[in-house]
């Protein structure tokens, strides 16, 4: 790709900007100590890093390195347009990304599907890989995207995804991650147009350090986002999620449902900020974060924020943190179910209601199997 990779002036500007930004420059970063990351390299390409992509004919996938003049022009309409710029990791990605893809989903189709798997081979413990993917969902398309991240190696990944949902499109965007030794930073931005629906499912099982930032923009009337997340953490896992939803038009809808289970010495951060702007009457924004702590040494920081600048809206937010419901446990034991089995069933039910609306039941079933095997290891 000629547009950015060979533009050394732009790269120099980015590097200047990076050097002037600290890791802790915004509230969304303050709950995780990123200072130690300054010892890592974001600018070294990992040669054997590749994404394996399986998809059907309803989606065209182009590698950034193979763009021709026309497709590059199209690509540049989307590249770096909606992702925030005051973020060091995004700037690193923009300056040094080497794994770039452009997904173009055809209009008026209802079966688009892509499975994306990462095959990072670690060539140095200190090097981050930088993935950059743009998704363009054309009008009236229905799509399921599944990221299936199951790498047991000590991978370091700094990814940026930019999603564009055109009118009346509907997307199930599923990120499944079970990478116990991963250090992963994801920045995802989405721009949602009229009558379009984005259903995000993010399922994180373990992870050494995971930092996810989501920036959802409900730009046109009747745009919707259902954000569903679960994290299953144990040992010294650390997951920090920041979810920002901007209601930028009338009749927009957002619903965040995020449940965490924490065991061992794990730490979770849930920070959601939904902003309803002045001109956005008749909008609805919901946030729910529920956390179950299975050990005394695990902890969660929960901060569900609503910023409402219009009187004619419906909003609700809530957060609960506690142990397994002892009344429910007693009820189940009084029905002859062992304490251990009852606990596992309660954990499963706590999670299942978050992801059971997933349209692809085969994916749901395979994710459930992974969840079950995590639960089976709970004492």
């Amino acid at each position, binding site marked *: 790709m000629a547009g950015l990779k060979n533009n050394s002036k732009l790269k120099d500007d980015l590097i200047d900007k990076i050097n002037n930004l600290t890791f802790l420059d915004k509230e969304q970063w303050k709950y995780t100590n990123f200072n130690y990351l300054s010892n890592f390299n974001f600018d070294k390409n990992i040669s054997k890093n590749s994404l394996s992509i399986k998809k059907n004919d309803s989606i065209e996938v182009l590698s950034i390195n193979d763009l021709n003049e026309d497709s590059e022009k199209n690509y540049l309409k989307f590249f770096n347009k909606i992702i925030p710029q005051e973020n060091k990791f995004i700037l690193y990605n923009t300056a040094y990304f080497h794994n770039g893809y452009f997904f173009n989903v055809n209009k008026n189709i209802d079966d688009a599907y892509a499975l994306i798997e990462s095959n990072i081979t670690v060539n140095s413990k200190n090097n981050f890989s930088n993935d950059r993917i743009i998704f363009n969902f054309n009008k009236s398309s229905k799509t399921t995207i599944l990221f299936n991240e199951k790498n047991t190696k000590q991978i370091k990944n700094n990814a940026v995804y930019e999603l564009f949902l055109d009118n009346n499109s509907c997307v199930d965007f599923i990120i499944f991650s079970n990478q116990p030794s991963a250090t992963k930073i994801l920045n995802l931005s989405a721009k949602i147009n009229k009558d379009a629906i984005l259903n995000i499912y993010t399922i994180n099982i373990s992870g050494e350090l995971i930092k996810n930032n989501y920036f959802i923009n409900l730009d046109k009337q009747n745009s919707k986002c259902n954000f569903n997340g679960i994290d299953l953490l144990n040992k010294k896992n650390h997951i920090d999620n920041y979810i920002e939803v901007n209601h930028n038009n009338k009749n927009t809808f957002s619903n965040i449902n995020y449940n965490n289970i924490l065991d061992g010495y794990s730490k979770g951060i849930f920070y959601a900020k939904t902003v309803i702007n002045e001109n956005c009457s008749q909008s609805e924004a919901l946030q729910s974060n529920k956390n179950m702590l299975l050990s005394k040494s695990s902890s969660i920081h929960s901060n569900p924020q609503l910023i409402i600048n219009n009187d004619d809206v419906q909003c609700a937010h809530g957060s609960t943190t506690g142990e397994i419901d002892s009344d429910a446990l*007693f009820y*189940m*034991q009084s029905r*002859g179910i062992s304490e251990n089995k009852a606990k596992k069933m309660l954990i499963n039910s706590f999670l299942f*209601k978050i992801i059971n609306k997933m349209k692809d039941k085969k994916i749901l079933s395979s994710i459930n199997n992974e969840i079950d095997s995590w639960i089976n290891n709970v004492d």
Partner: protein
Amino acid sequence: MLKINKLNVGVDDKNILNNINLEINKGELHVIMGRNGTGKSTLSNIITGKDGYNIGGGEVLYKNKNLLDMSTEDRALEGIFMSFQYPVSIPGLNTMHFLRTSVNSIRKHQNKEEYSSGEFIKVFKEKLAIVGLDESFAKRSVNDGFSGGEKKRFEILQMLLIEPKLVILDETDSGLDIDALRIVANGINNFKSKNNSFLLITHYYRIIEYLNPDFVHVLLDVKIVKSGDQKLALKLEENGYGWLKK
């Protein structure tokens, strides 16, 4: 079946039950009535095995075994069932999965063959009809979004599926409309036999009329102050508890 001897129960420093004696034999249905806060639910919780109470003395024997040494789960496996006054909602836990796990755990303990999925659905539908619930219950979460009446009928459905030996009905009639009460009472009568026993806790005579108990006991000020037959319940319905203090 169940024998309670000189039982004293407290919570923190407060005495909740004092010197309770009660014997329930096979095939009998006993009723406990009494004002709010006199320890009726505590008694059912002690029999089922809920934590949080101090046993100050006395014993509870079930089939001649010391019940107080058994876990809640073991009590259920041995045939004790309580219909809860306030059944807990468990969002996300499918009713069929819950019921089959419960029924099969108990059947396994009793050396009976566990139900296959198909067999269980057949039994489930049969019992569902008795309590007047429709088949959509199979897809719902346990007690989640159930009306008060549905919750109580769901408790009776579990009793019919589990087939316990000793049933504690903790205010199963509270909050039921006339039709639902009849359905619940029919469910209990349908299951009642000379091989099982019941302890009903209630405030109202209407369910007693349906169930024809063998004994009625009055629990007042942490003690059983009077025992009798169904006529005692009728007298309480007409005159309240005041006369018992004289």
